[in-house]
């Protein structure tokens, strides 16, 4: 294959024979590579954020909500109709509104959501939220062994509150600590693990003793409780009001008579007032507030979710809001075919709404949160707006460097023309140099960006530790959730591929254009004057 001679010379000026690479071209290529890398990484990470928020939002409210135009009792029929559609995976009705809650002198007005116990967790990953929100007690001679609260422990008199509400009221769910010196506190030494702690378990000291075989004994002096029990599939449970344990005897050989001591702390109770109750109270009707226990503290990763929030059972809300049989809306979850693409989801919601538009609106998640995504998009565009001039500065640097080369090579340029090179070809040497710099820089930049994406967690935690220190790391990481930020590779998503391609092409275009001025200069030169040049 014959290489066109201007390309040959352009290449050789960047990579001269017998030298690895010219200093100028190395710098220029690195410059372009860094620029391309930064642009790709910023945009890819912004997309990652969008993706992450999207997941969080869907977790917090499902793929869509069916909202009745007025409070309705007609929802069970609709729920059934929707569930008959094979694309609908879950439908969960909810009641929602502010409730006044009180603990002693402290009060709060959380947005309260009553969810259907059976279908609610199929839409909301409540267990996940509870895990995120759990707080541990610190003690010198004891360790907090409270199991994660479970959404299934929600009853009509048990609620979950957000961290904000918990802090405001100074409430917490029940806790259980194992007493003893820290070196004895490994599960393996005790041979049992706390499995569940019902919110009804009172504050007390408990002793759990191994009697041999499958026999165990749980007693509490303060409660005058003493019961023998047998392990049932490894589960030890002495009945309501006591903690449940799990025997880990496959891991340890228990000694007969071995015992360990636990201290339980009763979960806080709060009083719930509803607007209806307050109205009745004003009419001098005596209405006692509803007492509920705190089953757990949750944390919803979606920042747009109300900070002051409470999740209880549908029936609790029905009761305190005097809304028997009513519903404020339904959380919907669809099959991936529908939910993966916003257009399909939008179309599907419209399809569902059309025959029912008199009574119901079907609102997809991204419509409800459009403000937020518009904000993210705006930030992304702002970034590009900032980066493009930086790219142009880099282009100027390349143009200047190539211009210097042209000036340095004036006599050579004259000679090339004298040897029969067409002016256009001579000029194109410099344009091609710009192109090659752009091309190699873009390739290197894409490679760098891949490395960045590959090692984003290590890079991020390195930076975070440097700036925030080890202490701050957990806080920052929790907020940004970098450890679960998904940034797809270009071969995994067409969106990512187009990001890579766009910025690579941008870099190539800009540096080719940067070569254009020097090229024009060179081709316009009078060869006789060029040869005379000193």
């Amino acid at each position, binding site marked *: 294959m014959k290489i066109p001679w201007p390309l*040959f010379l352009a290449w050789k000026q960047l990579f001269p024979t017998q030298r690895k690479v010219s200093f100028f071209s190395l710098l220029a290529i690195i410059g372009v590579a860094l620029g391309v890398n930064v642009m790709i990484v910023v945009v890819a990470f912004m997309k990652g954020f969008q993706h992450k928020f999207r997941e969080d939002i869907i977790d917090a409210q499902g793929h869509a909500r069916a909202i009745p135009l007025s409070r309705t009792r007609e929802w069970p029929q609709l729920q059934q109709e929707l569930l008959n559609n094979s694309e609908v995976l879950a439908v969960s009705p909810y009641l929602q509104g502010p409730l006044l809650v009180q603990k002693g002198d402290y009060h709060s007005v959380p947005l309260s959501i009553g969810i259907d116990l059976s279908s609610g967790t199929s839409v909301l990953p409540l267990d996940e939220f509870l895990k995120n929100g759990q707080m541990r007690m610190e003690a010198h001679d004891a360790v907090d062994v409270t199991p994660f609260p479970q959404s299934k422990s929600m009853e009509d008199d048990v609620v979950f509150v957000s961290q904000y509400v918990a802090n405001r009221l100074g409430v917490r769910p029940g806790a259980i600590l194992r007493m003893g010196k820290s070196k004895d506190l490994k599960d393996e030494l005790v041979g049992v693990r706390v499995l569940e702690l019902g919110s009804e378990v009172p504050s007390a000291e408990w002793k759990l003793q191994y009697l041999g075989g499958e026999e165990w004994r749980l007693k509490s002096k303060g409660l005058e409780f003493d019961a023998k029990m047998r392990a049932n599939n490894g589960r030890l449970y002495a009945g309501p009001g006591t903690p449940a344990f799990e025997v880990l005897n496959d891991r340890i050989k228990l000694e007969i008579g071995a015992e360990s001591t636990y201290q339980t702390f009763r979960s806080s109770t709060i009083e719930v007032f509803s607007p209806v109750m307050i109205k009745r109270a004003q009419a001098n009707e005596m209405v006692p507030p509803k007492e509920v226990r705190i089953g757990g503290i949750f944390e919803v990763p979606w920042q747009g979710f109300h900070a002051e929030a409470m999740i209880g059972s549908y029936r609790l809300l029905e009761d305190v809001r005097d809304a028997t049989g009513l519903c404020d809306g339904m959380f919907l979850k669809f099959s991936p075919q529908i939910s993966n693409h916003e257009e399909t989801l939008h179309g599907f919601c419209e399809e569902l709404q059309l025959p029912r538009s008199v009574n119901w609106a079907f609102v997809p998640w991204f419509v409800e949160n459009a403000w937020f995504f518009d904000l993210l998009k705006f930030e992304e565009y702002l970034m590009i707006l900032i980066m493009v001039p930086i790219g142009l500065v880099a282009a100027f640097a390349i143009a200047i460097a190539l211009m210097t080369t042209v000036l340095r090579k004036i006599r050579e340029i004259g000679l090339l023309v004298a040897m029969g090179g067409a002016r256009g070809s001579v000029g194109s040497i410099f344009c091609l140099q710009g192109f090659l710099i752009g091309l190699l820089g873009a390739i290197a930049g894409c490679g760098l960006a891949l490395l960045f994406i590959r090692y984003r967690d290590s890079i991020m935690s390195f930076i975070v530790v440097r700036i925030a220190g080890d202490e701050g790391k957990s806080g920052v990481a929790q907020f940004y959730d970098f450890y679960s930020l998904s940034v797809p590779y270009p071969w995994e998503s067409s969106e990512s591929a187009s990001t890579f391609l766009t910025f690579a092409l941008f870099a190539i275009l800009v540096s080719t254009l940067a070569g254009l001025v020097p090229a024009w200069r060179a081709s316009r030169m009078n060869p006789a004057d060029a040869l005379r040049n000193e």
Partner: protein
Amino acid sequence: MNSSLVLQAKNLSKTFSLGAEDLYVLKEIDLALPRSSSLSIRGESGCGKTTLLNLLARIEQADRGELTWNHRLMRCDRPATREEVAQRASFLGVVYQAYYLVPELDVLENVTLPARITGRFDPSIEDRARFLLEQMGVGNKSSQIPGKLSGGERQRVAIARALINRPEVLLADEPTGNLDERTGEEVMDLLLHACSEEGASLILVTHNLAFAQATDRQTFLSGGQLNEV
């Protein structure tokens, strides 16, 4: 037109404007170069020798005049056309006082560069380049870079490069001007020898009387006129 002439110039005139006044460098110069012959041009510094070569190579535009390369008749008062440029690449070879080797290329790549420009580059060209370098006595330097060569060696490489496309005319502008006397003689011998070997006609600009006398015809440029000596 005499077909045994490889290059012929008629009535070439060139003026440079120096602000207010004009500098008449060449006045109606006639020149005829038979095939496979050599011609030397001497003259005082600044008399227009380089300018004349530039006009003959169509690198510079004349005020008036005509020029024939082989059978192509050209008007010199206009810039070189695409075809003329293309023909120049194979018709002419040029050697200058300064060698103008491309520093990023090694010797072999420098010598074969004109063949790349005319699109004739292929492996056989490299063989020819090695042959020419051998002839010039720098056969062992073909993979060196120009920066590591002596002045004499560079000029030999430049001559090899000028000959690579088998040009019919070689224009040499003080090719020994930068060399000491002995090296200059060596290079000049090689140049003359290679030209007769290759059948190329030579126009040699030089200040050195001995070199000038080694050519078939000697001319002297003064006052814008070219006179046979």
